[in-house]
């Protein structure tokens, strides 16, 4: 009988220890921020880890008051930031569980995270249910604020719409007499949406453009021999691709080897993530999903961010790093704005301050102008890859103001594009 008692005792005490560990009470001076980004899987290398690095850098610098103007005050509203890091890998169910753990068990004040659009879609209603302030930093699908409206959810990064519209505008500016395009995109929501937005926008600008190839190889295929053949047989002026990570690198390497880019120019909408590690053909059009990375306008804040990031991680920060930093600076601005009306702002105060907020990040000005003030709006920037003195760089950079590449608030992206992009202001 003794054995049974010990067994029961152990089981019960384990259970109690597990369940009754309440979230630790906040010491007056800390702000707990949950950070969710890919730490494993295919998206970790190109997106997740650069974002995590930026989060660590910014949190560290803010806590030690090392950030230049306008963020030269310690922490967030004087509170020390405590970061809780979670891997974004796994299913949506798993991410919902982990999100609840962050909020209900770890007691975080804010969650910043999510690269996958599917995860963002799944998390938003849960954030609303838990009344948990949540900042989506990277995912691109415009569906989030176009299909629903949320009170507790913000997105400080621009939607994917600006990438596609910007890309279409850029190639028309680059080659006004362009006749044809091809597209090669991954066979899942991101690839299809990117291509649809891009080709719809291009057809508004150039109604008689001819589509030579419309290819959707499966995600993570890695071998593009057949696709490259058909792109070569039926050449176009430009090849649009929203490939990312290993797929993009494989496509560029295999395409270069077969001379695919000798006559045709590739548009890589996420190409900036690989520009410092991949031998990209001269003249390739590179996107950074906004004014990030090499396209970030010069400022003291940007110089600080870039040089410190390079010093710490030995590689320049790419767009996921910028977008993560941007989320933190957005939060800091909103929080401190809310503090002006009350010393200890409630969630409601912060939300009110965050809506329609304008703030600066290392990537320049950000306006929370869409989705009833919950969705950021930024300019779209494109340029061409070049090697300046042996170092990867960009030339012919063009910036398109937010109103030129984004629908007005309340209009769905694809409807706006197909309706002729009415009201776009591009000067």
């Amino acid at each position: 009988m003794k054995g049974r008692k010990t067994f029961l005792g152990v089981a019960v005490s384990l259970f109690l220890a597990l369940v009754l560990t309440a979230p630790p009470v906040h010491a007056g001076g800390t702000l707990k921020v949950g950070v969710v980004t890919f730490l494993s899987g295919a998206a970790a290398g190109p997106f997740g880890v650069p974002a995590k690095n930026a989060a660590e850098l910014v949190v560290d610098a803010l806590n030690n008051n090392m950030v230049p103007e306008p963020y030269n005050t310690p922490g967030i509203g004087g509170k020390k930031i405590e970061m809780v890091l979670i891997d974004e890998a796994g299913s949506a169910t798993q991410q919902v569980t982990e999100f609840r753990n962050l909020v209900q068990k770890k007691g975080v004040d804010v969650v910043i995270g999510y690269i996958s659009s599917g995860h963002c879609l799944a998390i938003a209603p849960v954030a609303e249910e838990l009344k948990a302030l949540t900042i989506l930093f990277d995912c691109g699908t415009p569906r989030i604020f176009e299909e629903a409206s949320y009170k507790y959810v913000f997105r400080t990064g621009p939607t994917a719409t600006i990438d596609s519209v910007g890309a279409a505008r850029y190639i028309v500016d680059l080659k006004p007499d362009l006749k044809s395009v091809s597209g090669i995109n991954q066979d899942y929501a991101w690839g299809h949406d990117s291509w649809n937005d891009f080709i719809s926008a291009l057809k508004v600008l150039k109604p008689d453009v001819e589509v030579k190839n419309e290819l959707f190889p499966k995600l993570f295929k890695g071998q593009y021999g057949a696709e490259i053949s058909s792109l070569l047989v039926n050449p176009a002026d430009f090849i649009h691709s929203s490939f990312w990570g290993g797929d993009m690198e494989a496509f560029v390497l295999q395409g270069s080897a077969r001379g695919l880019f000798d006559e045709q120019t590739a548009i890589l909408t996420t190409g900036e993530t690989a520009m410092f590690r991949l031998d990209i053909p001269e003249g390739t059009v590179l996107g950074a999903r906004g004014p990030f990375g090499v396209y970030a306008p010069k400022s003291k804040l940007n110089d600080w961010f870039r040089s410190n990031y390079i010093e710490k991680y030995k590689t320049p920060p790419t767009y996921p790093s910028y977008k993560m930093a941007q989320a933190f600076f957005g939060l800091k601005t909103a929080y401190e704005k809310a503090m002006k009306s009350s010393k200890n702002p409630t969630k409601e105060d912060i939300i009110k301050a965050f809506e329609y907020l304008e703030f600066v990040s290392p990537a320049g000005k950000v306006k929370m102008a869409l989705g009833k003030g919950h969705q950021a709006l930024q300019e779209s920037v494109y340029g061409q890859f070049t090697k300046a003195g042996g170092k990867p760089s960009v030339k012919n950079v063009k910036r398109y103001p937010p109103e030129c590449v984004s629908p007005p608030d309340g209009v769905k992206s694809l409807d706006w594009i197909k309706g002729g992009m009415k009201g776009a202001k591009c000067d």
Partner: protein
Amino acid sequence: MRRKDRTYPILVGLFLLFSGAVFFTPRWFSFLLTVAVARSLVVLGVVLLMRAGLVSFGQGFFYCIGGYVAGFSSNAFGVTDAGAVVILAALGAVVAGAIVGLLLCNYRDIFFAMLTLALSMILYSVIVKNPALGGSDGFNVPPPTILGISPEAVDPRVSLPLFTFAVAFLLYALAHRYFLSGFGYAGLALRMNEIRLEYLSLSARALVFLKYILAGVLASVGGALIAYISGHVDPELAYWTTSGEFVFIALLGGTGHVLAPLAGGVVFEVIRSYAFDLAPSLWQMVLGVILLLMIIFMPEGLWSLTERFLERKRDEAAP
């Protein structure tokens, strides 16, 4: 000597215990428990097949069907009652299982495993390629009414776990009854010697067919419940790693008893959740090492602990 079967009272007791947890434990824990119980239904199906010597690497096929039945019922057809949807999900699994089961009942071992995997991956790619089905990002599933009770009347954070536990424990009781029935034991015979089974005038093919459908129903109901619990469905439900996870949990729990998948499911969710928290970059390794240790030291799964424990008790009782 046969022990007295106390499974049914234990099931009732567990149901009461889990239901109590909804009221007396923190929300994150009762949520974790709800996810674990719903997913353990899928594992129960895997175990049901394993007892017959069949390993399915494709239970995600039915898990996904269940999830999408729930999603489309509420979003497209206005059927928002969880009770009705669970029945629809079960029917969906019977129809789908009956069609593909005709093919699968001819295969065993690795061929069976690979074919089930292939089927779930076909479903995965069909959904991913189809924007009308929500594409790879999936879509949200609003909170259901539960047997006529609207989410406004009773907090779904209370009603949904209770409903999940009720459905799950009912199915556990039925599964236990099945394990003890002639057909249930025929599964063990199927694993050991198919030819002798045929000489008992039982058709091995019919048996595999039946078991495949039953396992499918369990997975589909689990999927429908998960759709409501997480509020979102995406094609990941049918991805092979999802199915692999169910096999993992089945190995973790063991196949010795109907409650083994439940034990495995709860332990797995708790371990994963803590691994996520404590080792955000290494959680897969934690799970991998645990699986490895399980296979080496406890090949019969967690459930073998109770066997060892009961044996010791009997030894102590003996003079």
